[in-house]
């Protein structure tokens, strides 16, 4: 049986990949995908720990996380659409009318 720590390492790796994506990619959609990656890292954890602790809480929670992720994407895509309409671009570094 594979120890739970490997799952944690895997999830952390996925989380960090997502994080790097957030920090380096300028396309709003990629940003969103990277965040999804981070959420999935959390899901890995939850499932692994649910198995480890022997209760279903984590699995159910993962279900909720997925639903939330979907809702978030829905709202996010809507915002990205109006972003494109206003700025003619989906680059997140373009809108800088407000700063300081």
């Amino acid at each position: 049986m594979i120890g739970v720590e490997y799952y944690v390492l895997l999830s952390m790796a996925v989380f960090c990949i997502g994080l790097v994506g957030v920090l380096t990619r300028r396309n709003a959609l990629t940003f969103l995908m990277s965040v999804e990656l981070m959420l999935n890292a959390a899901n890995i954890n939850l499932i692994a720990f649910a198995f480890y602790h022997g209760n279903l809480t984590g699995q159910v929670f993962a279900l909720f996380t997925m639903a939330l992720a979907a809702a978030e994407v829905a709202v996010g895509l809507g915002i990205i659409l109006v972003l494109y309409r206003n700025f003619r671009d989906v680059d997140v570094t373009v809108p800088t009318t407000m700063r300081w």
Partner: protein
Amino acid sequence: MNDWIAIGALALVGLLIPLGMMLVSYLLRPTVPETSKRATYESGEIPTGGTRVRFNIQYYMVALLFLVFDIETAFLFPWAVAYLDAVESDAISLLEVLGPMLLFVAILLIGLAWAWRNGAVQWAQTPRQVEADSDR
């Protein structure tokens, strides 16, 4: 630890096989450049326009709707799993079993109705249709 060596070896082999095949193919094949080879394949039709077409915004709308409602159905599964046991159990009344899910579905229905009435599922009109509408 030995298990891990085996896994590592397997991974290595798994990586080498496709790479080797690509290498062999590269060495053996004749090179005959031809434009139709580079063209986009569209089920045998002659391609029109570039690959980077802009999709109609309605694609996103439908995709969003699909995404949201699709994911919501995932919540039905745990309920469905527990349903039979719950119905047979004496401790829980039928209302307590069905009520929450009916409420959940009702809320979803309100959402769907809203999206529908606000034109989210209505396919966008082409310019020609708009013209036709205004002519009438």
